[in-house]
């Protein structure tokens, strides 16, 4: 099992000026360290699923190659889009939000 209950660490309130609403929002937002920590396992999980998807595809190709000697072009194109998506995700200095770029990529005809 895993230890549970790893909740967000709440830091002390810090007034930065502006309205009470802004103060409340700032207080509620996560620090960079918290963002990295809180979503690490979830992202790890999703990346493993993506890796397994690629492995599953390769295994299927290997099975089909034994019988027919080729794969499916449309399927290969889908995987190529995912490879492109992974490069966008891994970009350390994207020109726009990565999610925007991915949605544009997946909407491409």
């Amino acid at each position, binding site marked *: *099992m*895993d230890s549970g209950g790893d909740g967000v660490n709440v830091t002390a309130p810090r007034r930065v000026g502006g309205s009470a609403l802004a103060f409340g929002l700032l207080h509620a937002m996560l620090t960079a360290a918290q963002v990295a920590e809180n979503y690490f396992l979830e992202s790890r*999980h999703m990346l493993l699923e993506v890796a397994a998807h690629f492995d599953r595809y390769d295994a299927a190709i290997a099975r089909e190659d034994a019988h027919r000697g080729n794969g499916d072009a449309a399927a290969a194109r889908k995987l190529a889009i995912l490879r492109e998506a992974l490069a966008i995700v891994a970009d350390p200095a994207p020109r726009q939000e990565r999610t925007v770029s991915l949605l544009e990529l997946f909407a491409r005809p």
Partner: protein
Amino acid sequence: MQIIQPHYHAIARTAQDYERMAMSGVVAVAEPAFWAGFDRLYPETFIDYFRQISEFEPTRAAQYGIRHFCWVAVNPKEAENPLLTREVLRHFPEFFAKPTVLGVGETGLHKSTKNECESLEAHVDMAMKHGQLVLIHTPHLADKAHGTKTVLEVLAGMNVDRERIWIDHVEEQTIRPCLDAGYWVGFTLYPITKCSPKRAVDMLEKYGTERILVNSSADWGPSDPFTLQECILEYRRRGHSLQEAIEVFHNNPCRFLGQNPKFDIQPIRVETADVAHA
């Protein structure tokens, strides 16, 4: 379809989970002894816990038509107190005599310390001397590969019956050496931190179904007993037959757990009616 949930921490779950499991075909669960979320200080705390899982929990499961079996162990996270471990181990034989206790588990490693390795060895030795089955926990996340290798090294130095030992929580990087060494292995399906239903099916397709158990664990942390049913759905959706699913999710638990005669649920085979001759 009848399902056996071979690793399930029932005391951390609600009656509604039993009810929903029963409605989805679960006929039996096996509950390994477990970490309570804090390190227990007294042998008596373990004894009462073992009484809970060997005496009370079967009655709760029975209300939903589910058979409940269990295992006894000092959790690897509590192995840093060797005195406590020794004292608790001394009481194991009285629980081996109980009608639903299947063996020693989950023992194993957490940080792979010297004390943990000694505790693992003492647990396995106790099980082998009393003809019991063994369920071994392997560490999670970054510690898994090293911890699993260490488990195999500890076991290699002992005189054990490998077919009676189940190494649990294996993943893609640890399954092969455990199977190659002749042990049973388990896939533990968690929403985030362990194996996923899809990855489990990938491994079943790659390694076959022999000596493989699939479980949800389902404890007091983020977990879900129905990841097991999700896995069955994924397995069937990929075209595997009902009988193949029964082999993995019912008959394999029967084969491993049935090495202890107290587990008397038999493997099943579906038969198709021959309509032409009806």
